């Protein structure tokens, strides 16, 4: 009873108690480890799997060794499944519109001859970009496929065409949205999604459980201060959050070979902010919810917009403007950009700052609401 405001001893006791309860509550514990794993496997493999054998047709007005070589190489790359040749542009476009095929390769007249003359003839690849993520890899690979196959044919007297610039001009037509299609987007994004889901639910439940089971009443009749209970309950889950991050980053590296260009310590440091924001949301929900079921419902209410409007599910810039405004409020939106920026682009603190302050702002507001509500429910 020495300290009037905050007692480390009592805080420690709350933390120890939470850990014991966490250990005994097998279901919750399984959820904390299981959710990341299941989501990783589902999203990681299902969404991230590199689409191959995409159906394609060729509209060729040239029958040179070069054009044949390009088509064979496309087929062999396994990205494209070259179904057949079509004879008219109208037919090709019909197929594309119907969704029968994903790509049309157009080879112009005299392609081979103009290539030999060094005129850099144009090869046109049109992609059905309604699902940009589906065609992205094939489009990226196309450039490489063409130049290799053409080089292979530049033998003997044609070898002097080899060095220098590319012998062919490539045109790729697609609604290319660079933010939405990078293969590596999903796994770093999952980190934010998993943290949001588990942390908000678990803290929401942990506190409503105390009031639902009546233990809160007992707790409040002791000299313990609300702040000690709050922080004592939150602290173990910060550790849980970091375990999840470690789990996901390890999987990202080993299973998905995600490049990690930026600084991992920076990811860890900035994650604390995001974890704190989510825990505070959970705590605030628990001060409003009367029982665990309500807390769960509120969590879903928060989780759905987070997962749908943050740019995790859909390309952010592909969303309508009003949805983007909502998305901008959510911490997940900014956390995704921070993590992707650091891991994939090698961003540092300076480049991340524009996504840090919105999380801080969000946190501050939710914390204020939570503390106000918490005092009032105590009466």
């Amino acid at each position, binding site marked *: 009873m020495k300290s009037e405001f905050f007692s480390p001893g009592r805080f420690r006791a709350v933390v120890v108690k939470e850990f*014991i309860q966490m250990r005994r509550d097998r279901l919750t514990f399984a959820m904390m480890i299981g959710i990341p794993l299941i989501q990783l496997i589902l999203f990681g493999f299902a969404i991230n799997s590199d689409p191959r054998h995409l159906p394609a047709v060729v509209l060729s007005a040239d029958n040179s060794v070069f054009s044949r070589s390009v088509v064979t190489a496309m087929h062999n790359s396994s990205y494209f499944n070259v179904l057949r040749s079509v004879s008219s542009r109208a037919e090709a476009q019909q197929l594309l519109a119907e969704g029968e095929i994903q790509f049309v390769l157009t080879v112009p007249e005299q392609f081979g001859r103009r290539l030999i003359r060094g005129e850099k003839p144009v090869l046109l690849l049109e992609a059905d970009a309604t699902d940009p993520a589906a065609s992205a890899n094939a489009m990226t690979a196309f450039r490489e496929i063409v130049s290799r196959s053409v080089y292979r044919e530049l033998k003997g007297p044609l070898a002097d065409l080899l060095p220098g610039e590319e012998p062919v001009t490539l045109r790729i037509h697609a609604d290319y949205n660079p933010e939405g299609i990078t293969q590596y987007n999903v796994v770093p994004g999952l980190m934010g999604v998993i943290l949001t889901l588990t942390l908000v639910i678990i803290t929401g439940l942990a506190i409503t459980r105390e009031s639902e089971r009546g*233990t809160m*009443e*007992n707790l409040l009749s*002791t000299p313990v201060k609300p702040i000690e209970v709050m922080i004592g309950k939150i602290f173990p889950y910060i550790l849980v959050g970091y375990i999840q991050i470690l789990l996901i980053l390890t999987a990202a590296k080993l299973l998905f070979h995600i490049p990690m260009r930026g600084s991992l310590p920076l990811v860890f440091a900035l994650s604390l902010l995001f974890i704190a924001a989510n825990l505070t949301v959970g705590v605030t929900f628990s001060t409003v919810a009367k029982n665990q079921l309500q807390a769960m419902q509120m969590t879903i209410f928060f989780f759905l917009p987070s997962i749908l409007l943050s740019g995790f599910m859909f390309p952010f810039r592909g969303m309508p403007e009003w949805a983007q405004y909502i998305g901008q409020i959510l911490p997940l939106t900014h956390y995704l950009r921070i993590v992707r920026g650091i891991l994939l682009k090698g961003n540092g603190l300076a480049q991340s700052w524009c996504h840090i302050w919105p999380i801080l702002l969000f946190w501050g507001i939710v914390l204020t609401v939570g503390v106000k509500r918490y005092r009032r429910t105590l009466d």
Partner: protein
Amino acid sequence: MMDEQEFVIDVHGISKSFGSKTVVKNLDMRVAKGEIYGFLGPNGSGKTTFIRMLCGLLKPDKGFGTCLGYDILKESDRIKPHVGYMSQKFSLYGDLTVRENLDFIARMYGLKKCRQAVDECIARMGLETFRNQLAGNLSGGWKQRLTLASCTLHSPKLLLLDEPTAGVDPGARRDFWDEVHKLAAEGITALISTHYMDEAERCHRLAYIAYGDLLASGTVAEMIENSGLATWSVSGKNLHDLSEKLRDMPGIQQVVAFGNTLHISGKDHAAMEKSILPYMSESFRWAKIQTNLEEVFIHLMQQVRNV
């Protein structure tokens, strides 16, 4: 009559309402040190709310007073360390063991030598065999014993027990009350709410509260005396018919069947005797008996309803 005594609870004009519903109305209460004070009243009469106000879980809307010498409005932080509160519902952690629960509570009160205090408490309350069992798996009686252990762990000066023995068998209840009397002998004051008459009779003093109002208080004898009730007992055949006939007679307020006897009580002694006179035949045996607490309480409750 006990002005010179030290009052552990001394509150006046306490009121509390939730929304438009007034739960406690202008309640005064004085409880002397070392007293076991019984707190009775029908469900929803405001007992729990009043007890919660005493230990700082709720703030009174009106009223003033002290608990353990501290202002109940401003100094609940000073009151809490000296109070052991036991809520109606089992409120320890079902997923912690007996030992872990006690250890946690000990730390909440900032006890020094936690381990020793917990060990002593386990030994004193006879909880050794259960020490590593999950509290949620204990039977009702042992749960209640554990709760009593947890709220006496920090040697409080005042126990606030809110229906501590609800749903506990008579043996465990008797053990529990023996324990409370032992603590009272050590100078601990206890305010206990209950619905059991036998428990009420084990209290030093009683208060009866109904729908927020304090209706009566005093010792058991005083309560019975002040009620002014007289009671007759009758036995014989066809008691049920008799009870139907007597129920609406002038002067008779209560007719209650107790196995093979009926208890008939009323406040207006003359009118009651006049009413039962025709039935004083050979087939019934009549005797004037001591009014018991239950009859007093039912009488009090009826009065409130009639108002």
